[in-house]
């Protein structure tokens, strides 16, 4: 496009009135041809701006032909272009001119790179809707036909996604042609094309007339479902869901079910997996009668399939399958035809199967009711709570709420406890983390008494875990427990234990006290905070470790809003002022931060903020970057946050942190 991109496209040429504001546009146009990919990419991303400046006429006659010619660019640029063109209808002059966008998109729909092609197809689909019916037949349908009969597989693959958008609005003669093209793609000799066709079969079926579905789609479906490649067959399973929704029960039985039965017993596990994975959709699509006659037996087979992948996929669907059964007779069917197979899976050899089952099995209790749950499901739950794989136990525990509603948690509590204790001490910190997160829920269901007796000590033990993430989670857990059990409980059971840690020889534990106070103060309220927590925090301001001292400053800032003005004025202010004179840069910094926050609160002028030693000052000292920080600091704030961000699992950190720190704090 010599005119638009060349030197002629100065400000005057682009806008016609010599407006300097069009200069950036000229630059963008020029950069469409720059050697640097990044510049071309930036320019393409602003293509709509360029088009807007050029006006609809020149966009059509100059910009689009130019773009059509540059299709040999980097895939990244092409992807951006394909995306842009989907929203271009307005910029070329509205629906009457939408067809101008087809040539570049057609080229993009034939490139090798899948993401580019998919994006081009997506844009074409979008634009097809903006075509007038006449333009659709004059321009869009011929494009689809060209793509469908292209030499290289990429264009045929792309064509598959375009049939369903133009079919509904085409005339009958054209419709017949479109169907014909789709048929031939379904038996293309390139598996890539057959896969594309199979994946669009369901979508295409939905826009066809019922007669055509029966006479044309069903045979295509049957063929694809018995393709020699399993990658094609499995896509037919997906199509099955859509097709089944369109047919009557009688037609289904005759036209679809033989194929579906065959798929459920396919020799390739991938196809069987797909059946298992789509089971709920299939169940809804074929309706209750066929479900009982066909799908339940198929499901039983999938649950005892020889491949663990298939069993796990089926196990995942157990609850949905049961839920979707017709209420009448549901219980009997589950008890007789599903439960026996589930019982087998509880002791499966593969842990993924067991954990898939554990993630849904609790849901059965609401469906089966109290008595059945106690008699039949409870033994399974108990067995799974003792499973060797932590994930299985965790999945059971995390779904306790379903059972709680039906039989109450007491039934389980005796078995629950050893399972929880074991998970709480698991060697993997992620497992410990997961169980902590269920503690508030468990506490709510087990009640305060049981909790105090059995679980409280666990919760406190986590506070001194050697992994920071666990200590952090334990802190949050305490807050949630206080919200649940109330302040009185907090005052009697939690707070004393937390405060004792303030004298711990390990500075990380001392800091945990501060973190707990940060978390608990709000839930505990003014009185406990002022009377019990504040003195401890203030006392810790004299700690020999700087990390503790600046956390004191942060804690004071944090609990400030809860305290009354007296406490702030009389107790907090002097301590902060003292910390503000600390010899450690960071302590000073956070003390200043706290002072200004508190000062704002008090709105008193005699609480000065030192403007000269503002935040940036400590950062100048490069040594700060060498020192590990107490974890849990806000990462965005303050200077020395780099080190702890990535060091969460930290037995090692604990050691080095202390070493490095003490040598520094002496100076």
């Amino acid at each position, binding site marked *: 496009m010599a005119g638009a991109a060349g030197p002629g496209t100065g400000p005057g040429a682009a806008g016609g009135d010599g407006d300097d504001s069009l200069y950036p546009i000229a630059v963008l146009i020029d950069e469409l041809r720059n050697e640097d990919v990044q510049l071309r990419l930036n320019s393409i991303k602003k293509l709509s701006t360029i088009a807007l400046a050029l006006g609809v006429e020149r966009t059509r006659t100059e910009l689009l032909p130019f773009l059509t010619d540059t299709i040999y660019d*980097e895939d990244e640029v092409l992807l951006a272009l394909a995306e842009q063109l989907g929203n271009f209808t307005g910029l070329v002059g509205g629906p009457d001119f939408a067809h101008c966008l087809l040539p570049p998109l057609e080229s993009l729909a034939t490139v*090798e*790179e*899948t993401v580019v092609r998919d994006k081009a197809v997506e844009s074409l689909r979008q634009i097809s809707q903006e075509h007038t019916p006449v333009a659709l037949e004059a321009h869009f349908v011929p494009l689809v036909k060209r793509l469908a009969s292209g030499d*290289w*597989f990429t264009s045929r693959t792309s064509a598959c996604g375009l049939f369903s958008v133009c079919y509904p609005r085409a005339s009958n003669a054209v419709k017949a042609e479109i169907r014909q093209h789709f048929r031939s793609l379904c038996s293309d000799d*390139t*598996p*890539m094309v057959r*896969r594309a066709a199979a994946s669009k079969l369901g979508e295409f079926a939905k826009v066809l007339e019922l007669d055509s579905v029966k006479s044309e789609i069903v045979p295509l479906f049957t063929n694809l479902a018995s393709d*020699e490649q*399993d*990658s094609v067959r499995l896509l037919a399973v997906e199509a099955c869901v859509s097709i089944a929704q369109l047919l009557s029960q009688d037609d289904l039985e005759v036209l679809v079910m033989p194929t579906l039965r065959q798929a459920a017993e396919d*020799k*390739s*596990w*991938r196809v069987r997996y797909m059946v298992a994975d789509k089971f709920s959709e299939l169940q809804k699509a074929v309706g209750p009668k066929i479900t009982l006659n066909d799908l339940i037996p198929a499901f039983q087979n999938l649950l005892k399939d*020889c*491949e*663990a*992948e298939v069993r796990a996929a089926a196990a995942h669907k157990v609850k949905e399958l049961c839920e979707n059964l017709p209420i009448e007779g549901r219980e009997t069917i589950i008890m007789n035809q599903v439960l026996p197979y589930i019982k087998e899976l509880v002791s499966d050899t593969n842990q993924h199967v067991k954990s898939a089952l554990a993630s849904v099995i609790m849901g059965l209790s609401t469906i089966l009711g109290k008595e059945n749950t106690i008699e039949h499901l409870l033994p399974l739950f108990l067995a799974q709570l003792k499973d060797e794989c932590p994930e299985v136990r965790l999945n059971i525990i995390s779904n306790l709420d379903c059972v709680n509603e039906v039989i109450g948690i007491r039934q389980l509590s005796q078995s629950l406890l050893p399972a929880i204790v074991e998970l709480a001490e698991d060697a993997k910190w992620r497992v410990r983390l997961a169980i902590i997160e269920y503690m508030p829920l468990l506490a709510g269901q087990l009640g305060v008494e049981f909790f105090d007796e059995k679980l409280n000590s666990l919760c406190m033990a986590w506070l001194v875990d050697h992994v920071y993430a666990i200590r952090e989670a334990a802190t949050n857990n305490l807050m949630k427990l206080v919200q649940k059990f109330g302040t009185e409980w907090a005052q009697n059971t939690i707070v004393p234990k937390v405060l004792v840690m303030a004298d711990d020889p390990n500075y990380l534990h001392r800091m945990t006290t501060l973190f707990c106070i940060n978390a608990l103060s709000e839930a505990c309220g003014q009185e406990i905070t002022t009377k019990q927590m504040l003195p401890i925090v203030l006392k810790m301001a004299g700690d020999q470790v700087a990390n503790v001292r600046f956390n004191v400053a942060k804690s004071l800032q944090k609990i400030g809003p809860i305290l009354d003005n007296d406490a702030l004025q009389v107790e907090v202010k002097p301590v902060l002022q003292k910390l503000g004179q600390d010899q450690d840069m960071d302590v000073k910094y956070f003390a200043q931060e706290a002072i200004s926050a508190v000062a704002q609160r008090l709105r008193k002028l005699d609480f000065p903020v030192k403007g000269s030693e503002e935040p940036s000052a400590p950062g100048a000292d490069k040594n700060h970057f060498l020192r590990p920080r107490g974890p849990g600091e806000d990462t965005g704030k303050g200077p020395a946050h780099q080190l702890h961000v990535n060091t969460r699992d930290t037995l090692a950190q604990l050691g080095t942190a202390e070493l490095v720190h003490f040598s520094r704090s002496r100076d």
Partner: protein
Amino acid sequence: MSSSSPPPAGAASAAISASEKVDGFTRKSVRKALRQKRSQGSSQFRSQGSQAELHPLPQLKDATSNEQQELFCQKLQQCCILFDFMDSVSDLKSKEIKRATLNELVEYVSTNRGVIVESAYSDIVKMISANIFRTLPPSDNPDFDPEEDEPTLEASWPHIQLVYEFFLRFLESPDFQPSIAKRYIDQKFVQQLLELFDSEDPRERDFLKTVLHRIYGKFLGLRAFIRKQINNIFLRFIYETEHFNGVAELLEILGSIINGFALPLKAEHKQFLMKVLIPMHTAKGLALFHAQLAYCVVQFLEKDTTLTEPVIRGLLKFWPKTCSQKEVMFLGEIEEILDVIEPTQFKKIEEPLFKQISKCVSSSHFQVAERALYFWNNEYILSLIEENIDKILPIMFGSLYKISKEHWNQTIVALVYNVLKTLMEMNGKLFDDLTSSYKAERQRYLMILMTF
């Protein structure tokens, strides 16, 4: 097919030794192997009712020649029965009988003449199909990384190995007649065989490679089909799944197939080169099959030199942007191509190519820089550079001069000095001009900076 019989597969089996260590660190697989026990998998066996127990048949060598043929077929049929190897204690006796029988069959077809008669073909192929054709099991490790992880081995290998062994002896037997076998070894058979190349077990892929190679050699009618199917497997690998275990093996076979292509090359073959082999360079696991891939590419160029320009432009298009390990492989391939390039072709691509090489020599990753600088140890490349020094020196000069002053790695600096010396000897005048204009340029920048 117009091509002559291919040379034996294995011509391209150059080992990839560079991939054994990463930056001097032991690979994860080595560390993992310490905790991981060897895993085995098989989906061959699907429990279907009770298992037939095998009863030993008389030895073939003890039978009279009249009975032998009958007994041979009985034994073949007996070997169609499959056993569950995931269960290591079941059917021990029957498994042993089958193993012994398979051994006997291997021995029988390889030492006796005239035993592969027309009537046996059907039973032979049926036995082979029954044993080896199966849907491969899902990988034990869903994130299986062929570069890092130990493969899952086929559990039923004790039997399958013998079946492959038998298959090979059968194909290689002097009595073997493709004209009869083609009734049984047809497109569908080959299709299933190709799917097995995805096996995680390297032992199986090795057998498959030899088997497919023999089939390609002996069944002229299947050649086009085999090539097309390999084409499809590769396209799926590149654009859909990025996963196929047997890429290296298939490429190795292709290497020998390409070698046999008749000239002029058909459009189909050129398309395969440009639309399949070149895009394959983008694959994540390139290291696993790069040696074989580069071999195929070079084979093409040796056949038809006019393909050099599009191939090099293709490689430049897909040049790795972030993966240094791959960049080193690309440089290796470029050197292999330059080794066989014609001077006229060289002129066509020297500019874009040396722009890329110039970027590589100044890579801060010393292995990349080093690999690129090694080009100057290659006599033929040196002669090409010398012939075109007027074009190449201006492209290279800036980078070379800069890294000679700035590169962190001393080996690289030393190499660069040698290269600069060589270039200076090729055209001292041009070298001096470039040096002074480079210095003038720098001076100008310094001035700008100072007055800023």
